[in-house]
């Protein structure tokens, strides 16, 4: 009984630790005072201002486009790669998995710098595309690591059975393999999307001067003070995801975990 109470209390403290800053940001989005340090009364002003602020809206647009496109391309390349790696012999498989681990284990600052050096070396102007290519690069490993466990669980004979029954390899893949590994593919996509959305360091080194994502825009404002519209936007994004997850969780209650491995 005491043990149970202690466990609950411990979880509570950790959750408070993790979510306290988020609560503060939500409160700040309703703060009538422009200053972060004092409370000037409740207002919805920043939420109205937000949609008129072209700078922020274009940063949001860039962020979402890059997150979606990079997650999509990484999911396609990563899933194909995972299937191929899974069917490789031991040595090439270990080499490929070792390379896949590099972007995940290496420091962001080194990954960002190294990608920047490549773009500069081939005289490629830093901008939207260089950020997109960089995001795809650090997203692919998340997809591969999400899909691999699902491939390992596959029954090796269903694919052959489908082909014996006359299905073309592509059709058999689409009908037999894809449905089985789909949860892994989906969690790879969402993990990639989240990572891309939250990335600052790699974007910072690979972007050109005229491109801004929300992260880099916020960073330029750290010293002079964050615009309250940013708090409003973050609150909206956070609550959207929260509601979406609650909805999905309700619907899937009891079903298997969509996200298993980071």
């Amino acid at each position, binding site marked *: 009984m005491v043990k149970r109470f202690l466990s609950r209390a411990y*979880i509570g403290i950790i959750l408070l630790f993790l979510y306290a800053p988020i609560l503060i940001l939500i409160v700040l989005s309703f703060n009538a005072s422009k200053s972060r340090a004092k409370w000037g009364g409740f207002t919805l002003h920043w939420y109205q201002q937000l949609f008129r602020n072209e700078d922020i809206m274009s940063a949001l647009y860039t962020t979402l486009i890059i997150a979606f496109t990079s997650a999509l391309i990484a999911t396609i390349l990563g899933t194909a790669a995972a299937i191929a790696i899974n*069917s490789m012999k031991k040595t090439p498989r270990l080499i490929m998995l070792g390379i896949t681990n590099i972007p995940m284990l290496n420091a962001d600052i080194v990954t960002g710098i190294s990608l920047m050096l*490549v773009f500069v070396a081939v005289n490629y102007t830093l901008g939207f595309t260089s950020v997109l290519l960089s995001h795809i690069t650090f997203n692919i490993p998340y997809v591969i690591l999400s899909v691999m466990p699902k491939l390992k669980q596959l029954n090796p004979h269903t694919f052959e059975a489908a082909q014996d029954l006359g299905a073309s390899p592509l059709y058999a893949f689409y009908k037999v393999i894809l449905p089985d590994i789909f949860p892994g593919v989906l969690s790879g996509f969402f993990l990639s999307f989240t990572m891309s959305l939250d990335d600052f360091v790699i974007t910072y080194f690979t972007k050109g001067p005229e491109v801004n994502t929300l992260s880099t825009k*916020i960073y330029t404002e750290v010293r002079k003070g964050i615009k309250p519209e940013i708090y409003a936007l973050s609150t909206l994004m956070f609550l959207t995801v929260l509601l979406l*997850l609650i909805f999905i969780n309700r619907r899937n209650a009891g079903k298997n975990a969509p*996200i298993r491995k980071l």
Partner: protein
Amino acid sequence: MNIKNTLTHAAEKKPDSGVQFSRVNKVKWLSFPYILWSAGFILIPLVLVLYYGLTDNNNSFTLSNIALITDPINLKALLLALELSIVSTVICLILAYPLAMIMNNSKMQSNSFTVLIIILPMWMNFLLRTIAWQNILEKTGILNTVLKFFHLPTLNIINTPAAIILGMVYNFLPFMVLPIYNVLIKIDKDVIAAARDLGANGTQTFLKIILPLSLPGVISGITMVFVPSLTTFVISTILGGSKIVLIGNVIEQQFRLGNWHTGSGLSLVLMIFILISMALISKYDKESEGGNLW
């Protein structure tokens, strides 16, 4: 009897995944885009860092960029970064292990739900969450207001190394919790039951069964927290004020000023530390797999 070896052995005996697509050798072609991609965007970039780090402006070979790490300012930044990242990794481990165990033991709705609670904060921008800690830690911030209310002495930790450690623990705690949790949920409940049947008490079961089996998760958690903490420049910028300089800040500044050779040279030093920690960790991991548990 070595339980862990038996378990890994059993795991390896599962149908080998390599055969399932053997009929379609074409499947190997699927890896071509990724092989090209990883060559172009993972391997060549690292070679370029190596090249820039070992050359000067005239493209001739030099070790002077790397030698710059012995410059007192840079050395101090590196040592401070090492100190802070080691402290925050240890704190993360101490906080995360019990949390992962509680998550594993409690009958929460589903695995995904517990995991989501831990990664959900990532949907609020990482920079903003760190900035929010300024609000909490400032002289007249929330923490001190609460402390004053209870007539407790106030804390002044903003713009000190303590604030940076807090920022590191806050940002990277999920990367310690999730790998440990992922290993714990895979531990066979029968193994634990068997230990209890054979007379082991709770502490013995933990020390002899759970802890050794969870070691791979602990180890990957340590790397996932140590490396980003060692190399951060954002957390120190936001929570450390302008006076505290970590090695990440030095490298970022060199690149901002256009000194790519110097920046790359210092990155190489950083990569040495990353590689050493990974090598130590993987060696330790292998030793524990070979060693006897009983």
